[in-house]
């Protein structure tokens, strides 16, 4: 079990793990490994885009212990649960999603994990949940919508501390199905470069088709 790039993500025989903050709790049926008195939960990089990016050799995630994370597009809470492992008990993850169907699962997970907070809100309207979140160190966005980049920038401006990191997974097919993904990635890159320092960029092939992962730093 060795740490990957000081991400608080651990690697063993090609598989990725995080140090679990709960005991005997694996809501997604993921494997739990015990190593030197700690529990580690396995993160499937074919299911989580963050771990797909780490698998592809991401140099920086920016997520540290004790950080406050705003997670847009949390869905059932698969990746958020691992992010909450990474930030540990001192940190907090605000999990935001728009669909009540997935929220039902998420609330049940949030009740067991003390550093996760559910929010039923629309990510495209950041002003509506202004009072319900704290200024965050990390903004993670994974929403498959047409206005992904605009939403990301709006939230970066409103909810992120200066010097904080923004992580964006971009699904090219949601932006425009008729255009080539590469074109959309390049366009997004130039839009982001205008405002922020782009720290890293990975395409998530072959784990996710037509997806890219951006890491940017707010000045």
């Amino acid at each position, binding site marked *: 079990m060795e740490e990957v790039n000081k991400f608080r993500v651990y690697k063993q025989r090609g598989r990725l793990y995080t140090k679990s903050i709960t005991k005997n709790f694996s809501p997604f049926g993921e494997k739990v490994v015990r190593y030197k008195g700690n529990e580690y939960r396995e993160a499937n990089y074919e299911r989580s885009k963050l771990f797909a990016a780490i698998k592809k050799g991401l140099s920086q995630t920016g997520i540290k212990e004790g950080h406050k994370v705003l997670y847009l597009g949390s869905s059932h809470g698969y990746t958020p649960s691992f992010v909450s492992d990474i930030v540990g008990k001192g940190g*907090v993850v*605000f999990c935001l999603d728009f669909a*009540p169907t997935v*929220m*039902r699962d998420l*609330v049940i997970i*949030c*009740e067991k994990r*003390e550093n996760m*907070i*559910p*929010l*039923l809100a629309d990510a495209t309207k950041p002003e509506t949940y202004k009072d*319900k979140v*704290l200024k965050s160190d990390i903004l993670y966005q994974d929403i498959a919508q047409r206005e992904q980049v605009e939403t990301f920038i709006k939230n970066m401006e409103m909810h992120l501390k200066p010097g904080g990191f923004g992580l964006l997974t971009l699904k090219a097919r949601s932006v425009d*199905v*008729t255009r080539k993904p590469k074109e959309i990635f390049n366009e997004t890159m130039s839009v982001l470069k205008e405002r922020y320092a782009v720290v890293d960029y990975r395409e998530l092939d072959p784990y996710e088709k037509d997806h890219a992962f951006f890491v940017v730093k707010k000045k």
Partner: protein
Amino acid sequence: MSIKKLREMNLAETKKAIKNSVNEDIIVINIINTLEEIEKQTNSLVMRLRDFYKLKHPEAESRISDNEGLVKNVLSGNKEKSVMGANLGDDEETLQKIALMCKELYDTKNFLTKRLESLLQKYAPNMNYLAGATITAKLIREAKSLRKLATGKSSTIQMLGAEKALFRHLKSGANSPKHGVIVNHQIIQKNKDKGKAARILADKISIAAKLDFFKGEFKAPLLVKEIEDKLKWKK
């Protein structure tokens, strides 16, 4: 405010919001999904029943092509004489058990169909009259809600359920699809020019959806008449 307090507040608020999020759209979508699933399951289970019944009464099995009729025939304990049929002995009970299961599925299906009909008569009377309960429910499912049907375009209604073909058309320039889930409507089935019929029907369904969502009057018979005039087709 401390994080702990914030968490408690958000948890309570989210739970309340989830509770209040249940509406007619979700019920309709769940019913139509269940109905489709039951249809599939019934068909494959009746196939197994046929295999079994063939051993006992091959003549009756080949005579009755209607699945529901076959189940009734098995349950009534067919007393006709059969030359090829074997005596099943203890497995007579097995046969009856499978038939009972099929009957239960048919009963549930009938119940759900009636429930869907009465629900849509209240929730979307115009669309229900114009397109029928099944197509209305499928349209709501594809669009996710009646609101989206009412605020969307009629060309969207025409294409709902044919997304795969539509995106193939957009990506590679293949022929565009003419209709989605509305294809099962008899207006389209009976008309030779299917594209034209689909266009006109989608147009009127769109008006009906607007009437239903904004709680307008019941104008569906008028809409049907307009379609008939346009297509010179009698219901």
